[in-house]
């Protein structure tokens, strides 16, 4: 049977944008550093989605290859971020990002 909704590239882009937006809001507003890191992963994954959508639309494989790179990069970045978090925790005994304000004037 014929579906009533064609899943076009636009749907993927909107989803990607929504996930991006969620991720940005999470980075900007969440207090816990671990959640901020998870939000950053969300942003990166949203970007992956966009890339794959455009790759399907154009029929080439460039987008998908780039997405593999981004996933690798996200993993590395998470590792480094968690390292910074652990160093930070050792110093301040807290995971509140509000308390990272030693460079205040």
């Amino acid at each position, binding site marked *: 049977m014929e579906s009533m909704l064609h899943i076009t590239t636009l749907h993927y882009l909107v989803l990607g944008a929504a996930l991006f937006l969620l991720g*940005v809001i999470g*980075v*900007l*507003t969440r207090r816990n550093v671990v959640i*901020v890191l998870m939000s950053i992963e969300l942003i990166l994954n949203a970007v992956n989605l966009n890339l794959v959508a455009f790759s399907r639309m154009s029929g080439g494989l460039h987008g998908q290859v780039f997405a593999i790179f981004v996933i690798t990069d996200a993993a590395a970045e998470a590792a480094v971020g968690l390292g910074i978090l652990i160093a930070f925790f050792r110093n301040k005994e807290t995971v509140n*990002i*509000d308390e*990272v*304000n*030693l*460079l*205040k*004037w």
Partner: protein
Amino acid sequence: MFFLSHIWLIPLLPAFGAAIMFFFGRKLQKASVSALCVGTIVLAFLMSCGAAWQYSAWSSTPENFHKPYQTILYTWLGTDTGQMNYPMQDGKSAAFQADAGFLLDPLSSIWLLFVTGVGMLIHIYSTGYMAHEGGYYRFFGYLNLFMFSMLTLILANNYVLMFVGWEGVGLCSYLLIGFYFHRKSATDAGNKAFIVNRIGDAGFLLGMFFIAWYFGSLRFTDVNHLAHSGRFAIGDPIITAATLLLFVGACGKSAQIPLYVWLPDAMEGPTPVSALIHAATMVTAGVYMVARSNALFVLAPTSMKTVAIVGALTAIFAASIGLVQNDIKRVLAYSTVSQLGYMFLALGVGAFSAGVFHVFTHAFFKALLFLGAGSVIHAMSGEQDMRNMGALRDRIPITYRTMFIATLAIAGIPPFAGFFSKDEILWQAWTSESVAYHVLWFIGYATALMTAFYMFRLIFLTFYSKPRMSREVEHHIHESPASMTMPLVVLAVMSLFAGFLGFPQSLARLVGIHGQTNRFEAFLDPVFSKEAQVFKAEEPSQLAAGIKEEEKTSGIEYLLMLLSVAAAGLGYYMAGRAYSNADKGYTEPIAAAAPPVYNVLLNKYYVDEGYDYVFTGRRKVGDVRLGVLGLGEASSWFDVHIVDGAVNGAGWITRLTATISSWWDKWIIDGIGVNGPAILARMLSYPARLFEWGLVQWYALVMTAGLVGFVFYYVYH
């Protein structure tokens, strides 16, 4: 010719005596000292007689006719390699040569004879006078040293050796005046004599330099030869300057105005010193020097006039002071200054032999007066003030009689010595070049009147009148010992008869004697004759008037002689009226008649005080100090205020500069230069700092906002 060729022994004998005194005197007995020192002078006198005798024989031979005898002991200053050459006035090169050379001619013979003769008598006198004094050997040592210097002066054949003697007599004068050095007045007087003498010496030296520069030689024979050669015009300015400077030296040594002030103070020395040095010998050195330089003086009429005027003024000036002095020696001191004025008056009017004749006679009667005064002081146990004497005539008869003879001589009463010499001077002054010289005659005449007055005043107050001394002094009055009275007698004989050597022709003619009776003038003819010719040539009027050489009888001469004798008699009479009955507290006639005049004369015209104000600066004129001490004060002020002020000022400026520099460094360099940019940076960074909140999510928000901005820009552009 032994005495002539060994003439250098004459000064050396007293030098030997002085040397022995210097080295061994303290250990010798008084008798040995007397024997040695008096003996050297006696020997010197005998040798002088021999030398003069042999000279007159030597100079009457045809080849040496009227030439001076010279012998040179050794060359003192000078080389024969030309190393002491100097440029003369006309550019030629002259060798400076001053030998230890001795010259004997009629002029120096006369001086030699009376210096050694009177010196001998005074040495003998001193053995008696100084018998009870301390420092006996020192006294005779100095006396012998003086004789050595004086004889060197007389016998020198050049100006430089004469200057050595000149300085030597000045030194001995200082030593002998300050003999009683425990007395401050004596040492002050010695200093005064030496210093005032020194001022004259400066003039002498400058005159000597002029002569050396102008003539190329300092030897008397050379200078005289050049002066007579006619190469120099009469009135030559250099010669005038040189002779005036030489005369300044003579003023210092022979106590003329303005350098006479040391002579009265020199009476602080023992009386034989006053007799020898300040009456007979040292003070005549100036006269000798001028007479010796007569060839130069004749070429400078201005200098001659100066000499005559200064001499005349000094004569009357000193005589006026002597009228009122109370110290017996001071009267005689001023009398000496006055008589020296006469001598210079004679030299100044061209009557050289008359001046020398007066030196000759004056030596005898002045030495006699001083020695007699010493005898009086000895009898009065040291009293010198005439106000406390009186009626000594019968107590000390020999002293009285000899002093009376000397007074007659000095007053100019014939036939005593002083009459002939003084009268000759007055006559020469009257017949000099122009009628203006009659003024000088009048000054001389007035002085003669004063001389007679004050000398007879001395005699009356001392020997006549009523006794005014205290009882103890009166008990001790006694005649002096033979060692003192014998020289008095000898000098009295000379004062009586020495005048006949210069017996004037005009008087001789009265008794029918023709020819040259003035042996003195004839003897001095070789020394002065050429001068008389040059002198005559200067003033043609004189050829008509009355020439000195040719004795044309003039009635005026007899009149003047009578006037002189009348003046002497008047002086005797007036002094007798005033003083022959003087009792204790007598009044001076001048004080009674005109008290202010008396005060001025008694205070010696305040000349010493004037010198204190102007030349030494011992007293201030208001707030300012003049003279030498004033110069010292001014120099000190300059040093303290200006020189040190400059030094202090430099220091002040350095401190000021340092202060400014430190202020600049602290406030400008450090403040603006260094701290300024720092403050500026801080100020500018203040707003920028506000952005640093330290909140990580805020940074992320800003980044996001920027990203959105970029996106909108790209989409809607």
